């Protein structure tokens, strides 16, 4: 009876994992399709054509480049801002920390369509033209919370007396930060930056409101439903997936190494 329950539970878990991967399987499979018409929605024949010529559509490549530039810039800024907030929240007790916490959580409990449309209202009100700058502004806005909460969760259990020890041994505050604090919090920051980058690369709804006439990769895909949906879209999606897999694997290994060195037991993904 007990074993039956266990098998049932693990069976359900397995099916849920399969459900999570079903569309991913389709995305990868259809990157090898040779569609009959302009739309890569029906299986026709196996081919390497799209992989051999992934940059065939200039507009798609431009959209991808724009997305990568936006993601790089917004991740860099949001990672700094978010990490500083996380440090303040874990290191100090201060008046207003509750308000800071609330302000971090609120963007996560507000639907994207509200975030995007309210930001557009502001830009309209200021007569600001929407374009590259407004996309980056929007992406920094929604990434800061994710970075701050991720970094805070990772550095909560850290033994801060190490810093005091370094200072007692005569290190300057700058040197303490550079030699002690940063190496310890670095894996958490790296995980947060990866998350911010992935969120930026993926964002559609908020970007749609604030992109003006600029077209990011998700916006290109959205437009593609009308004109043409080439398999190159799937090729790029698969490439992003593979790169994420590499980055994810590398950070997990790096974290485990750092944690082992410091004798800390924290699960890398949480």
């Amino acid at each position, binding site marked *: 009876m007990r074993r039956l329950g266990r098998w049932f539970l693990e069976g359900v878990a397995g099916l*849920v994992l399969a459900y999570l991967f079903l569309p991913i399987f389709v995305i990868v499979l259809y990157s090898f399709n040779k569609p009959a018409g302009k739309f890569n*929605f029906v299986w026709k024949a196996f081919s390497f054509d799209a992989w051999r010529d992934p940059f065939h559509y200039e507009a798609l490549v431009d959209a991808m480049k724009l997305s990568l530039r936006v993601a790089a810039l917004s991740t860099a800024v949001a990672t700094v801002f978010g990490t500083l*907030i996380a440090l303040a929240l874990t290191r*100090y007790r201060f008046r207003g920390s509750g308000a800071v916490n609330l302000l971090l959580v609120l963007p996560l409990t507000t639907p994207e*369509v509200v975030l995007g449309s309210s930001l557009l209202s502001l830009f309209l009100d200021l007569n600001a033209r929407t374009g590259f700058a407004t996309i980056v502004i929007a992406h920094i*806005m929604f990434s800061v919370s994710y970075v701050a909460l991720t970094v805070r969760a990772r550095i909560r259990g850290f033994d801060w007396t190490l810093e005091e020890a370094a200072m007692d041994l005569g290190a300057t505050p700058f040197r303490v930060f550079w030699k002690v604090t940063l190496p310890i919090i670095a894996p958490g920051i790296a995980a947060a930056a990866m998350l911010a980058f992935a969120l930026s690369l993926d964002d559609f709804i908020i970007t749609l409101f604030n992109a003006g006439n600029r077209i990011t990769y998700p916006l290109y895909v959205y437009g593609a439903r009308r004109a043409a949906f080439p398999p190159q879209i799937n090729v790029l999606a698969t490439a992003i*997936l593979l790169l994420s897999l590499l980055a994810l694997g590398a950070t997990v290994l790096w974290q485990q190494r750092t944690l082992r060195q410091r004798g800390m037991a924290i699960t890398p993904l949480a």
Partner: protein
Amino acid sequence: MAGTAAGGSRRSRLAPYLLVAPGILWLLVFFVAPIITLAQTSVAVPDGPWWNGFQRALGNYGTHFFRSFRYALGATLIALALGYPLAYVIAFRAGKFKNLLLGLVVLPFFTTFLVRTFAWKTILNDGGPAVWLLQQVHLLGAGGRLLDTTVAVVGGLTYNFLPFMILPIYVSLEKIDRRLVEAAEDLYSTPIGAFRKVVLPLSLPGVFAGSLLTFIPAAGDFINAQLLGSPNQQMIGTVIQNQFLEVRDYPLAASLSFVLMAIITIGVLAYARVLGTEELA
């Protein structure tokens, strides 16, 4: 973490404020100020009373609001039913494969949201594999469809926000002291009894956070309804997007957006009271 800040010098009292300043200022200018502008825009009616936008938002689009919340609720309940067992297995049964499994849960979401939803369109298409399979087992008639149905839209919403359900539940399960479960079993509790009396109550903060993080984006989403549904399944997000970007009736558009935010905020607060927890994220 008290007492870790060195001494009580003026510099260290100022330090936290300097650290939070850039990020918090950004959020004040590009998150809080826009919400205020949204409220102003919603009542800036060129001719007519200030509530004109709200009147039209609730009068003409009540069905869209209602439908969005119904779909989001459906997706949240299904995600809970699917996500809890997986989170449980990862937390209690996975052993050394724990991190691998967590990675597998997150990995699909590194492909673009839109491309994923298009993949569902391929799967659910007329003449596609899912329709064929359901017809073979006679769950679907000869001319039956999946695409352009409520099932497709709610299924898409469930899929796209499932990790937001799984991860918080996993985190709260992971925190549970295993000895509590053993103690319950030592005291002759059945496995189901131990789960009901020990594990489930302790995992409620995760269920709370997970269901909010699933429900909120699902209620505001319009991509699943647009790509997988017909005009009969359109959600409030589509209306807001259309009013803001195509029709440009700003008082109405802002009213719609504001009402959506207000309903969700009130709902979140009520839910937090019922569950008696303030833990989130």
